[in-house]
């Protein structure tokens, strides 16, 4: 009997000893505040964002960020809008730049500015012209995270073969057309691609210091009409027309994969010049078997380059979350925008490092030394003048504006008249702005 009791006590002690650490671990886990983070990163970028999150979760024990992929930007936005303001909404939500107006007026988000003060977050090291996009009436609405801008890529080897000098830092339309003509003479084929894509049009317009819509690109107050029916707009379409007429332009159309087709055409020597996001640099660097040239977005000869509008996405905070969750969200944002994390993020993905201090880190310095072409996009961003045009347009009907300008570009390639196509696009964009303003009660 006594012997048995000892046995039971021993067993019970061992059992308890085994269970106790488990419960402790469990307790520690429930004590951690979960921060749900919706994002739209795929492929290489998805791995990079998971790395940022894992690094953060390992760096502290108070909060746990849970990343959830919610489809492309265009798919994730309606999902967020349908749960925004409820308990099902994520704490943090990544969305692309053109949803800025819509999210800022949705009433489902907490502007960054109010919490920056509360939690003593400093934006002083973050790049001014990137913050500029997400700032409305002096208030920062969302935290920049993955930012990019367009650049002109060209094949230096093909240029050499055709006896063309490398393009200057800020090339003109005329220089690009001239090179395209020489490339065609040499190879007998069209070697330039200007993708009919609204974003490209917006960027080419901003580079001429022209706003897309009125009221300071919709940043002073809600825009009421499109105003690109001018010299700048015509310059862009005429440039496209010149190249289409000369047979130097390849047209990959408007399909969802047209951008990918264009990119692989460049790395496989089918085309020698095209414009794309600086975020594609990583892929191009990896796939191209020739010397890649990267330079600023082109401009008309008699116009000074104004610079580019920032693209990519930022991170939004949901409204109505607990103080603890907000604190955790902010802690994560602080980590994600830190110099070290942004440097690694930039190397992994090709997006800009949005923290100025990142450029002093060893890893980024080494990367720039090893691949000098990484510098051009950053230099272009530094040279960008801070004004309404380079801040980018702030309208809800941005997706429609992109289709309208895309149609104008495509129609001009197909031989339609520049003036009438431009005024058609402007009229339609104005009508779309009016519709959207009516919908949002403005």
């Amino acid at each position, binding site marked *: 009997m006594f012997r048995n009791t000892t046995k039971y006590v021993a067993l019970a002690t061992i059992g308890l000893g085994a269970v106790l650490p488990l419960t402790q671990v469990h307790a520690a886990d429930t004590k951690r505040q979960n921060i749900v983070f919706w994002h739209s990163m795929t492929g290489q970028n998805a791995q990079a964002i998971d790395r940022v999150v894992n690094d953060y979760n390992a760096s502290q024990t108070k909060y746990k960020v849970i990343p959830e992929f919610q489809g492309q930007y265009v798919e994730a936005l309606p999902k967020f809008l349908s749960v*925004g303001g409820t308990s099902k909404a994520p704490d943090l939500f990544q969305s692309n730049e053109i949803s800025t107006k819509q999210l800022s007026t949705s009433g489902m988000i907490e502007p960054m500015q109010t919490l920056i003060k509360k939690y003593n977050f400093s934006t002083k090291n973050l790049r001014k012209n990137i913050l500029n996009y997400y700032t409305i009436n002096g208030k920062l609405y969302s935290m920049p995270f993955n930012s990019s801008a367009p650049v002109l890529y060209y094949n230096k080897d093909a240029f050499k073969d055709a006896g063309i000098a490398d393009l200057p830092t800020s090339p003109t339309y005329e220089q690009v057309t001239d090179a395209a003509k020489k490339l065609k003479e040499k190879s007998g084929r069209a070697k330039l691609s200007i993708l*009919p894509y609204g974003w490209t049009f917006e960027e080419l317009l901003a580079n001429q210091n022209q706003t897309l819509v009125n009221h300071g690109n919709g940043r002073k107050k809600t825009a009421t009409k499109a105003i690109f029916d001018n010299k700048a707009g015509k310059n862009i379409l005429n440039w496209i027309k010149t190249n289409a007429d000369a047979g130097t332009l390849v047209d990959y*159309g*408007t*399909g969802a994969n047209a951008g990918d087709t264009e990119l692989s*055409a460049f790395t496989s020597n*089918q085309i020698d010049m095209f414009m794309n996001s600086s975020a594609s640099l990583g892929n191009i660097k990896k796939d191209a078997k020739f010397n890649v040239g990267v330079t600023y977005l082109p401009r008309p000869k008699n116009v000074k380059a104004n610079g580019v509008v920032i693209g990519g996405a930022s991170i939004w905070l949901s409204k109505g979350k607990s103080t603890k969750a907000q604190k955790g969200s902010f802690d994560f944002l602080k980590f994600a925008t830190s110099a070290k994390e942004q440097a690694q993020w930039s190397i992994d993905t090709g997006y800009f490092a949005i923290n100025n201090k990142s450029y002093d880190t060893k890893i980024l310095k080494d990367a720039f030394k090893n691949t000098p072409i990484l510098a051009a996009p950053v230099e272009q961003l530094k040279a960008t003048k801070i004004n309404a045009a380079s801040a980018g347009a702030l309208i809800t009907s941005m997706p429609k504006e992109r289709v309208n300008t895309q*149609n104008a570009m*495509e129609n001009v390639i197909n031989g339609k008249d520049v003036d009438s196509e431009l005024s058609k696009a402007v009229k339609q964009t104005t009508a779309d702005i009016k519709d959207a303003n009516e919908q949002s009660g403005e």
Partner: protein
Amino acid sequence: MTKTQTAHQNLLALLLLLPSLIILGIFVFYPMIKTFYLSTQLTDLVGNPIKFIGLKNFANLIRSDSFITSFTITLIFVLFSTVLTLFISYIMAITASQKMKGIAIFRTMFSSTMGVSVTVASILWLFMFNPQIGLFSKILTILHLPQINWLSDPTWSLVAIIGTTVWMNLGFAFLVLLGAIQAIPQDLYQVADLDGASWWLRLRKITLPATRPTIFFVTVVTLINAFQTFGQVDILTSGGPDYHTNLLVYAIYQDAFVNHSVGRASAQSVILTLIIMLFTMIQFYVKNKREGRNAK
């Protein structure tokens, strides 16, 4: 049968119907009624109705160039893709119904497009339509013909979408039609042979009439599928150039989920529903008339 018994039976019937009624109610009738409701509303950017605007959404659609283009090209697309699918798959089915060695290999090949998903098929055709390295561009070069911008020319892009769609439809249509042709009793042909009927006469007098119900079935299915085409458009052209391949279902998706105009999207859905309903009614009317005539 007493009154209570009938009542009991009705109750039982209702009870047995209940599961499907609930499912249909939630997934078919409720969304349908809601769509009708939303088509009369001005909706905010999230999709919630703000105010009743009657038929204004419809009026705006009729006045909009992009909708008229979408509407017209949808009708052209449906007509051509259905007729071509039917015509080509019927020829394939007749060819493959021949009894000879190795025909099974051809039957498998002809029906193989059934196993290809929309995305895979579209990507495949995207390569073939490539303006520089695509198959069609190479063929045109060999034949010394001028190059065609398959996916960015307003006319050719619709041809490209129709071609892709027909190719994808072929497998299913072929298989169904082949089954119907093989089910025709052989003695009919033997009798025709005795009479010395030509191949053309046998086709017209035996094969076609015997497979008429199947042709009808394939037409209805292909037609309704054609109205609902989405994937090919998204991958090949995204509705461009200048809305010339912006089929109605794609336009509805764009308006609802990209442009955040749920009211406008609902109005287009209602119009699409009415068109499909009309087409289906015409088809059944023609079928009934024909069957009535045959019965006499």
